[in-house]
């Protein structure tokens, strides 16, 4: 119970700080809209190819927005020297990590609330429950992995370079299965398997793995 209270307190602290400073979400939302505008001009979009192109654009925008969001989650703590103060308490490092990941995931969900309607608007693709659920399921796994590597590289000078190098290879399954799920939901051709089930399996796997390793990453 105490770990849950710690995780929720950390998440609430991060969300309150973001709400008051508005550092991250407005910038990410602008980035997402700009990426969609550029993709809209870059591709010759019509009603035939939109279901094939839109999922790719969605995941590209989401991946880059995620890298920024998760990178900031720990970089700001290091800059303020506040991560050490948190770790100097008897609170479990896994709970602290869970709180950071939860807040970063919720911030990314806010960005997705801009991304999905904008995608439907620019590309004329349907925005269904299946699309939203695939994106949300992928967000869980991407958030825990992104935060784990962000914590790992936060103390390194070249963290902006290292974070994508470490994170992107492990995000590929989410992009593959999430992409397939979104493509099918948008009326394009794609995998016929149970991609949502696979995304849930991946979420469980990575949530468990990152919970076990967070302690070693945070409290060296």
């Amino acid at each position, binding site marked *: 119970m105490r770990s849950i209270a710690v995780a929720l307190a950390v998440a609430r602290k991060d969300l309150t700080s973001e709400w008051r400073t508005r550092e991250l979400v407005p910038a990410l939302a602008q980035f997402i809209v700009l990426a969609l505008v550029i993709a809209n001009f870059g591709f010759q979009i019509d009603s035939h190819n939109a279901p094939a192109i839109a999922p790719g654009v969605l995941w590209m925008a989401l991946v880059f927005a995620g890298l920024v969001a998760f990178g900031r989650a720990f970089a700001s703590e290091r800059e303020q020297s*506040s991560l050490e103060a*948190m770790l100097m308490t008897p*609170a479990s490092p896994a709970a602290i990590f869970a709180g950071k990941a939860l807040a970063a995931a919720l911030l990314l969900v806010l960005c997705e609330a801009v991304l999905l309607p904008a995608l439907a608007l620019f590309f004329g693709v349907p925005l269904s429950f299946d699309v939203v659920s695939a994106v949300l399921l992928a967000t869980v796994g991407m958030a825990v992995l992104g935060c784990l590597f962000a914590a790992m590289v936060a103390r390194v000078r070249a963290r902006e370079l290292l974070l994508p190098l470490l994170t992107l290879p492990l995000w590929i399954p989410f992009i593959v299965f999430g992409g397939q799920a979104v493509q099918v939901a948008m009326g394009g051709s794609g995998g016929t398997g149970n991609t949502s089930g696979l995304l849930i399996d991946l979420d469980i796997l990575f949530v468990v793995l990152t919970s076990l390793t967070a302690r070693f990453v945070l409290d060296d």
Partner: protein
Amino acid sequence: MSVIVAASLTQRFGSDLGLDAVDVDVDAGEHLAVLGDNGAGKTTLLRILATAARPTSGSLEIFGLNATIERRRLRAVIGFVAHAPGLYPALSARENLEFYCTLQGVDRTRVAEVLEMVGLAELAGRPADKLSRGAQQRLAIGRAVLHDPKLLVLDEPDASLDSGGADLLARVMKGRTVVIATHDHALANRLCQRTLMLRHGRVVGIPTRLRVVH
């Protein structure tokens, strides 16, 4: 009874030697001042004693526990003020402390008491980044004593404090075992019973007893 028993603490940073076989022994209730020039190894020693860093070699027991293994248990009884205040700039002074109450497992009613103790009761609602550097340092000291620790490790806590800073430090140090790093010999003389002088990571001479405390 010894609270801290450190033997041959050595810390290497690559080829540089931050601490060289330092022995420290601090009794319960004793206040030890660690003195030395910049780069002498004061911060390195204090970070190890606060369990924020692991020594390259040597042994460290705090309250009879192996400090390199039992770090989380010990952190419940250690209060640490580091060089940087490490506050959340967008949160108010009160919110900063309330957040740490949850992490420390301390009741939130303690916040008002601590804000009063460090002289920030009137600034409790002000965001941390709108506080002066001295007030931020007071808040960091308040955070360190929030859980009423038995051992306080203070790394140059007087660096940004105003003239009332010494009184504040005397208040928070009372009844606790304290290791404090400072450049201010007068402050060390006022607040501590013993000093430990470091130079180039080594203890210089023998720890000096400043005065007898009854």
